[in-house]
């Protein structure tokens, strides 16, 4: 589904991604772990097309398309979704309207008919249960005044409604208590299918107790220092990141 090859990216003069290669097939969940500042979030932002990062080398192919040549909205319309680490507040714009606009743009791009407000309400209501959010939140402004947990659940709601092919979860677990974490993880697990893929970026292993990855990659200083199965996450939890940096780089 997605093929990342020798990806380099920088902010201003500073290189943050120093050659990342990664392949994720449909139906898979990959986890990216790593210490603070290793470039995890940068990778997530670059895949979503954040204008603040400059890709200096490498390629990303998504379902045969050159992802890096696409605008952020084209990526979204093509089925790429980023659950933000810090979801943005848009005061005055209702959640329902925001989400329906996004939903319809993606439908249009797929050549499907747009949903009117009533049809859309049906779709959303069903998905709300998935993340245990109240319908009243649809009338609130996008993320404005939401608690940290509400914001993260709202991201998963958007994920559920927009039904992407490739979803990136950028530290969705940070700042969540165990109950909220479970809700978020359950949501993701239920959305998991044979024709979609997830890239879960996280600092801690605990999310991976609930979302079980097929592969785990450890990012250190802009490079994948080690890859392995789900047991790698547990090992990291026990031994810390220093262990990875100390040992020689294993094959990717």
């Amino acid at each position, binding site marked *: 589904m997605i093929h990342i090859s020798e990806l380099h990216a920088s902010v201003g003069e500073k290189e943050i991604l120093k050659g990342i290669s990664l392949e994720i097939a449909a139906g898979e969940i990959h986890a990216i772990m790593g210490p603070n500042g290793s470039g995890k979030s940068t990778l997530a932002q670059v895949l979503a*097309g954040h204008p603040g990062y400059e890709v200096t080398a490498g390629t990303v192919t998504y379902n045969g398309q050159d992802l890096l040549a696409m605008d*952020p909205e084209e*990526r*979204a319309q093509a089925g790429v979704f980023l659950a*933000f680490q810090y979801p*943005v507040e848009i005061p005055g*714009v209702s959640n329902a309207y925001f989400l329906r606009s996004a939903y319809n743009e993606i439908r249009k791009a797929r050549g499907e008919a747009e949903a009117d407000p009533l049809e859309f309400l049906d779709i959303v209501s069903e998905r709300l249960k998935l993340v245990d959010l109240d319908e009243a939140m649809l009338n609130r*402004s*996008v993320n404005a005044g939401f608690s940290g947990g509400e914001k993260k659940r709202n991201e998963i709601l958007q994920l559920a409604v927009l039904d992407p092919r490739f979803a990136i979860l950028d530290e969705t677990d940070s700042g969540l208590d165990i109950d909220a974490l479970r809700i978020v993880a359950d949501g993701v697990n239920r959305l998991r299918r044979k024709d979609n893929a997830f890239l879960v970026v996280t600092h801690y292993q605990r999310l991976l107790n609930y979302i079980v990855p097929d592969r785990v990659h450890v990012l250190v200083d802009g490079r994948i220092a080690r890859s392995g199965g789900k047991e790698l996450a547990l090992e990291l939890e026990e031994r810390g990141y220093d262990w990875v940096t100390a040992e020689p780089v294993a094959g990717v």
Partner: protein
Amino acid sequence: MSSEIELLVNKDYQYGFSTDIEADALPPGLNEGVVRAISERKREPEWMLEWRLKAFRRWQQMTEPHWSNVNYPAIDYQAISYYSAPRTAKPLGSLDELDPKIRDTYDRLGIPLHEQKLLAGVAVDAVFDSVSVGTTYKEELRKHGVIFCSFGEAVQEHPELVRRYLGSVVPYSDNFFAALNSAVFSDGSFVYVPKGVRCPMELSTYFRINAADTGQFERTLIVADEGAYVSYLEGCTAPKRSTNQLHAAVVELVALDRATVKYSTVQNWYAGDEEGRGGIFNFVTKRGKAFAGSKISWTQVETGSAITWKYPSVILQGDHATGEFYSVAVVNNHQQADTGTKMIHVGRNTKSTIVSKGISAGRGNNSYRGQVKVLPKAANARNYTQCDSMLIGNRCGAHTFPYVEVQNNTAIVEHEASTSKIGEDQIFYCKARGLSGEQAVSMIVSGFCREVFKELPMEFALEAQQLLGITLEGSVG
């Protein structure tokens, strides 16, 4: 991102056409003779002429105020014509007898004046240059005892009401531009809603400046008697011309005990071109007096004019009176707006709310100037003010000048203001969900203005939407 925002703010002015029509105009210049000539053309009674002359004499002793944060070339008051009316006077019978050229003009402005095609639920008084050319639904309204007519007609037919309330809120000596208006005002609208009557439809005046080198000086007086309710809308446009034109209006609102007056404006006078040439100089005095238990609410969307100088205010005269001011002001290119409100708390337990949203783009300068004054007797007065600015680009300015003057210790006054820009992060977030940059900007701007738009009647909300090129669905209601 700036390209998306530019698309949004650089929309063409679609009302810039002019109508070629023969006019009865006074030659440029202002003296006592001109004041008399205007009064004579309107066949006014002696008391009206006397009032105008008093105002004129007062005006001659006054100087143009320059305390506001706007700069403009000196206005030559002798170069302006103070009266211009289409030769084909107002139809006596049906509106269908109206000069087709004028009717076409209003059609193009989206205000049909044909008896068959009238806007549903909105009565319109159409003011073309210095005169009212027609008022719709008059008979329908009369059944409810509501008087809605041109100011000139009111002077003839309801002199007792006009004499009683004219100048009772904005005296002719109030300020330079109000004095000028009082001397030379030509027409405008008059509304009287009797005791206990809820006006059955929205009332509206549509002002159109057509003639070149004339000033527009309309005067509006709205009186809601005890327990009455009225919602009034004002719209305005002018042709694109390369010279500046002066517009100095006065609006007086009177809300007697327990009455409600809601006054909404979408101000879209020609703003001048990208270089700042032409456009209307808009110097307007709007004020309401709210008696016991009454409510006066101003809502304005200010997008036009080269210069805007306007402070719709409320004197909270009676106990338990309420005043509101909701404003969106947009400046672009070389536009300058100095606008805001005054809430003067006189009575006890009076309450006021101010919500102001300023958007500055291009080389525009937007100033919020507001005064909240609590007089010594105004026990338990309450004010809440929120004043937000958004800047688009780096050559524009946003200024806030809030004056909070409190002389009663039982008052609670709160003022909050913020300035921000459309965040790159907000735009990226929207794009990452599949929205285009334009959609993102339009959505963010409408969200910013939401609290004001939700105060507008639906007809005006739609017009505001069109004007600002923004979407209201996500931000209204």
